[in-house]
């Protein structure tokens, strides 16, 4: 079974994010990067499927700057077999659509039975690349899955999706695109042996022309959404401590809620 896992390198969830003064982006100085946590669930699931079946190949693919290769190396150290890196200045600044298009194009050139992504990237939270890619590839999709079972004949999969107050169980024909939600599994740590072996694994490089895409179709130029400005969330105002007898405090509170907070 050939499985493709799409992953994105994102700032560590523990990092403190600062917006650049001109609002054009975030300060990258001092930020450590990790594999997007939801993509780690996708990768872990792919590795488990391969282990369960006792055969198969897991290819990890990312679109990102040269630094994003670290994410691929980590994935290879965890057990993926091959990497594909879409890296070129022309890819920069792309929206979900441009990214999905480039990824879909790279995937078209590869054999696959299953494509797994994270449900969203924790940096821009758009949650669109997986579904858009499925559309572009003409494949069925199921998003936000918490359980995945491959049928014995490997033509179908049963997935569990988290929906409001319940879980939805779906049967999907393969190949398909699934996006992973927390709860799907507990990702492993790369073993030291895996880390030592990762450098021997192949990472294929792509730019727009090797994917048969023109520079206008990728990155900022190929995007339908343009980011105008980033601004930090307003900092939380300091709390107020009311004083006096309980009775006085209660009436002060009501007054503040009505006149200042304007919520009653």
């Amino acid at each position, binding site marked *: 079974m050939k499985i493709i896992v799409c992953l994105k390198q994102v700032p560590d969830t523990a990092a403190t994010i600062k917006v650049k003064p001109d609002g054009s982006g975030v300060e990258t100085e001092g930020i450590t990067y990790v594999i997007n946590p939801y993509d780690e669930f996708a990768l872990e699931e792919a590795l488990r499927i391969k282990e369960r079946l006792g055969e198969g190949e897991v290819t990890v693919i990312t679109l990102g700057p040269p630094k994003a290769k*670290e994410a691929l190396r980590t994935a290879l*150290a965890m057990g993926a077999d091959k990497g594909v890196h879409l890296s070129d200045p022309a890819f920069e600044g792309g929206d979900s659509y441009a990214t999905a298009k480039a990824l879909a194009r790279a995937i078209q050139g590869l054999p696959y039975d299953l494509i797994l992504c994270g449900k969203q990237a924790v940096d821009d939270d758009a949650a669109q690349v997986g579904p858009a890619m499925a559309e572009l590839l003409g494949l069925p999709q199921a998003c936000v899955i918490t359980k995945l079972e491959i049928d014995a004949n490997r033509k179908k999969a049963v997935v569990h999706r988290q929906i409001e107050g319940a879980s939805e169980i779906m049967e999907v024909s393969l190949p398909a695109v699934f996006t992973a939600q927390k709860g799907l599994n507990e990702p492993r740590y790369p073993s030291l042996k895996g880390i030592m072996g*990762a450098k021997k694994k192949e990472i294929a490089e792509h730019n727009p022309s090797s994917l048969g895409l023109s520079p206008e179709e990728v990155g900022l130029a190929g995007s339908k959404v343009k980011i105008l400005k980033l601004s930090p969330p307003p900092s939380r105002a300091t709390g107020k401590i009311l004083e006096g007898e309980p009775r006085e405090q209660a009436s002060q509170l009501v007054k503040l809620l009505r006149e200042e907070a304007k919520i009653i």
Partner: protein
Amino acid sequence: MDLSLTEEQLLFQKTARDFATKELAPIASQLDEEGRFPSEIVKKLGELGFMGIAIPEEYGGAGADYRCYVLALEEICKACASTGVVMSVNNSLVCDPLYMFGSDEQKRRYLTPLAKGEKLGCFALSEPNAGSDAANQQTTARREGDTYVLNGTKIFITNAPEADISIVFAQADKTKGHRGICAFIVEKGTPGFRVGKVEKKLGIKASSSSELILEDCRVPRENLLGEEGQGFKIAMATLDGGRIGIAAQAVGIAQACLDASIRYAKERVQFGQPIASFQAIQWMLADMATQIEAARLLTYRAAFVKDKGDRFSKESAMAKLYASEIAMAAGVKAIQIFGGYGYMMDYPVQRFFRDAKVTEIYEGTSEVQRMVIAHSLLA
């Protein structure tokens, strides 16, 4: 000397850090309080390749080097120094001598499961009357046909209660002095071989140290490690590597002291301001950070020299001496910065302080390290 870390080393450091923060840090205080051996953690460390880091893959190891080893150990010890010593003993004091001096059969039979972390090892050199003077071995080995008969008592042996495989030193020919000492591989369950008193300790309470008692314990000749009379040389060569591990352990403990101190100093308010705004506190933090950096560089350098294949006794002794002394000093400062709270068992700095002390003692006291360094200067 290039001390910048490679991509693999950085990834390995990150993995060790993630593991230590997620799996170990949350339970370290409890392990210490209960004096409980972290068997589940040790099993996971084995699966990750942490129990035989510098041993080649063909013998079950991860095929990395001492630089990876010190990176991992620092991260593990930052969270839990007890777990660190369990790992360090298995890597440096058991796997290393088996790899350096073992026959191919011994490597396959004993080293492979140890390096994989499927089995645990211990190193039994110290005796009631052979501490710093390790050559004064009272444990005897008498040759009888195809076996050696061992008699004696070892003390303070880390991992001994849990160990499957022990490296035991004994005197086979008193007339030859330290050239009469032999090293043996003794399996758990060998008749006449048992665990004696398990010690109650000041620190590293989640690792265990105990006596090992040998009473007419018969060990087959195939279990002689190296040559007859080579035991003391094996012990000294092993400890040279081990000291790099203890240096890394000390750096990890010292870093834990600094991290906790910085966090606390920013939060604790006295005289209307965080105590971090007082120069007296800032200077303590600055000194700690500088000493830790120096200790870390000495440790990396010792690992680097060892990986290169050069002599490294002096480098490892210097790293261990300096790192252990600044770890102890960092423990003292951390408690000072925490004030009364630092003295209470509810805060972790008292554990770092207690754990730091042993790094100045085992695998050669600070005095012994100075002897080793001076010896190499004056040789």
